[in-house]
C-alpha cells in the first residue's frame, strides 16, 4: 500500500491550497463551458493507473463552484477512479499512479510537498455504501472529522454536529438519539449521517461516489433533495450510473466511456439540460437513449 503519511518532509514549505484571498490563476485559459462561473477544480489531462493498467486516459474537466457536476457512464469507465484522483484517494490502491494536473482553487494538489491529508480535509467524500464508524454514536460520527482536525471545544463540536445534521436533513430524525450507535440507523439515514460527517468539517468540495446505489428509491430521493440544498454552499461532484439521477440533480453532466485501449475517456461534458436534450456526440446519444450500457 502506498504510504501517504510518511515523507511529509516538505510540509513546512508546502503550498496551502485554498487559503482565503487566493484567486484561481487559470481563469484565462478556461474552456468556454465555465466562463460564467468560478472554477472549483481544474483537472488537466489526468490519467490514472492501477499497476500497469491504464484506467483513465487524459481527462480534463473544469468543475464549477457551487454546482453539482455528474459523471455518468457504464461500469468500468473510470468515473470512480477519476474522482478519487481529486482527493488523492486513488493512491491507496496498490501500485496506483496518477499523471496530469489537478488544481483546486488554483493550487496543484499533486505538487511535491503537498500532504494528501490536507487535501482530504478540504475535499470530502461520500462513498457508495454508507460507512459510519461502528464504534461511534451518531454525534461522535459527525464529530469524527472535527476531532481529526484538532477541534477540542465541546461546545463548538456540539454546535457543528447540530448544524451538519440539520444541513444533512437528519437532525429531526435523530436529535433525541444522538448517543445511539450510528450503525443502528437505516441505510438511508446512515448515508445522510455520512454526508453530515463529511460536511461537518466544511470542505470546499464534496465528492459523492454513487451515494444512492445501495439505497431504496425513497431514501434516494431524500439524498437528491439534500444535494440540491448543499449545492448552495458546496461544490458537489457525483458519480452515478443512473442517468435519471444525473438529469434530476446535476447542473453539469460529463459522460465517460471506456475507449479502445480499455481506459476511460471523456466523451462529452456540458450543461445537464443541453447534455440530455441535445447531445453532440453520437455515443452520448446512444447511451442516453438506452442503446447500450
Amino acid at each position, binding site marked *: 500500500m502506498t504510504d501517504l503519511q510518511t515523507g511529509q518532509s516538505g510540509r513546512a514549505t508546502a503550498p496551502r491550497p485554498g487559503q482565503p484571498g487566493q484567486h484561481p490563476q487559470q481563469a484565462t485559459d478556461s474552456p468556454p463551458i465555465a466562463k460564467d462561473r468560478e472554477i472549483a477544480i481544474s483537472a488537466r489531462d489526468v490519467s490514472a493507473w492501477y499497476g500497469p493498467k491504464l484506467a483513465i486516459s487524459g481527462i480534463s474537466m473544469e468543475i464549477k463552484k457551487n454546482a453539482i457536476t455528474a459523471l455518468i457512464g457504464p461500469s468500468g469507465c473510470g468515473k470512480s477512479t477519476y474522482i478519487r484522483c481529486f482527493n488523492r*484517494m486513488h493512491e491507496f490502491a496498490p501500485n496506483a499512479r496518477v499523471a496530469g494536473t489537478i488544481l483546486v482553487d488554483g493550487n496543484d494538489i499533486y505538487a511535491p510537498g503537498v500532504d494528501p491529508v490536507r487535501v482530504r480535509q478540504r475535499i*470530502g467524500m461520500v462513498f457508495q455504501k454508507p*460507512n459510519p464508524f461502528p464504534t461511534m454514536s451518531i454525534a461522535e460520527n459527525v464529530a469524527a472529522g472535527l476531532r481529526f482536525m484538532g477541534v477540542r471545544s465541546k461546545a463548538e463540536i456540539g454546535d457543528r454536529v447540530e448544524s451538519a445534521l440539520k444541513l444533512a436533513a437528519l437532525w429531526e430524525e435523530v436529535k433525541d438519539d444522538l448517543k445511539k450507535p450510528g450503525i443502528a440507523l437505516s441505510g438511508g439515514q446512515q448515508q445522510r449521517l455520512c454526508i453530515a460527517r463529511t460536511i461537518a468539517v466544511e470542505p470546499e468540495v464534496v465528492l459523492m461516489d454513487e451515494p444512492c446505489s445501495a439505497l431504496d428509491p425513497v431514501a434516494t430521493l431524500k439524498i437528491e433533495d439534500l444535494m440540491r440544498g448543499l449545492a448552495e454552499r458546496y461544490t458537489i461532484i457525483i458519480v452515478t450510473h443512473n442517468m435519471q439521477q444525473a438529469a434530476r440533480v446535476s447542473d453539469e453532466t460529463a459522460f465517460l466511456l471506456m475507449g479502445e485501449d480499455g481506459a476511460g475517456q471523456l466523451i462529452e461534458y456540458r450543461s445537464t439540460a443541453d447534455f440530455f436534450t441535445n447531445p453532440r456526440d453520437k455515443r452520448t446519444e446512444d447511451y442516453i437513449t438506452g442503446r447500450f450500457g
Partner: protein
Amino acid sequence: MTTFDRSAIQVRSDRLYRRRKLLNHAVTGLMLLAVACAVVPLFLILFYVLKDGLPGLSVHFFTQNPVAPGTPGGGVHNAIVGSAIMVGLAVLIGVPVAIGTGVFLSEYGQNRFGSTVRFVIEVMAGIPSITVGLFVYSLIVVRQHHFSGFAGAVALAIILIPIVARITEEMLLLVPRSLREASYALGAPRWKTVLSIVFPTALPGIITGIMLGLSRIAGEAAPLLFTSLGNEFYTTNITSAMDSLPTRIYSYATGPYDNWHKQAWAMSLLLVAIILVISLAVRALFGSRVTVRQ
C-alpha cells in the same frame, strides 16, 4: 408408477438415487461418530474433574497454605495468589508487546520485514512451553542465581505474545476497508485512522484473544518448573520463588498422599472453572459483536 413403461435412464436413476440415499446416511453416521469422539472425552474430563474435585473444595482449601506432608488439612492459598500474580504480570508484560506487534503486522507489515516478523511469530507460537521455560531459566534464573515469580511471568508472557499478536493482526485485518477509507477521506492521517477507527472497531476481538491467551497460560506448568519453581509458603514477592496452581497440581498429583491427590483434583476443578468463567464472560460481553463482524 408401474402402470406405464419407464425409460432405461429413469430406472437407472432410481438405482442411483437409492445408493445416494444410503451413502448419505452412512456418511452422516460417520460424522456423528466423529463428533462423539471429540465431545465424549471432553465431558468425561469435566465429569471426573467435578467428581473428584468437588470434595476437595472447602474454605481452608482457599485460605490456608500447604501444611507438612502427610498431615491432614491445609490449602493452596499460596498457589492461587501466585498464579494470579504471575498470570497478571505476564498479561501486563505480554499484551502491550503483542498488540504493538499485531498492529504493526496488520497496518505496516505488508513488506518483507513484516513477513519475517509474521514468520517468527508463527514459529514462536509453535515452540514447546518447556523450551520457553528453559530459555527464561538461562536468561534470568541462571544470572540471578535464584528462581523467581518474575521469571515465571516472563516465561508466560513469551507464550502469550504470539497468541495475542496473531489474533490482534487477524482482527485488525477484518476491519472493512470502507471504514479506513471513510477515515482517510475525512482527512485523518494514517496513525489517527489506526488509533481512533481501526483499533476500536477490532477491540472486542482483540480482548477475546487476550482472554483466550490468558486461559492458555493460566494452565501452563512446564514454563514455570524452571522459572518460578514453586514455593511451600505464601509470598507476594516476585523476586522470590513463587507457587502456582499448575506446578502444585503437578507435585501433588505425583505425590504419595491421598490429601494431596484430593487437593490436586480440586485445583484442576478451579482452573477449569476459571477458564470456563473467562470464556463465558467474553461471550456475554462481545460474542455477538465479534461474530457479526466476521
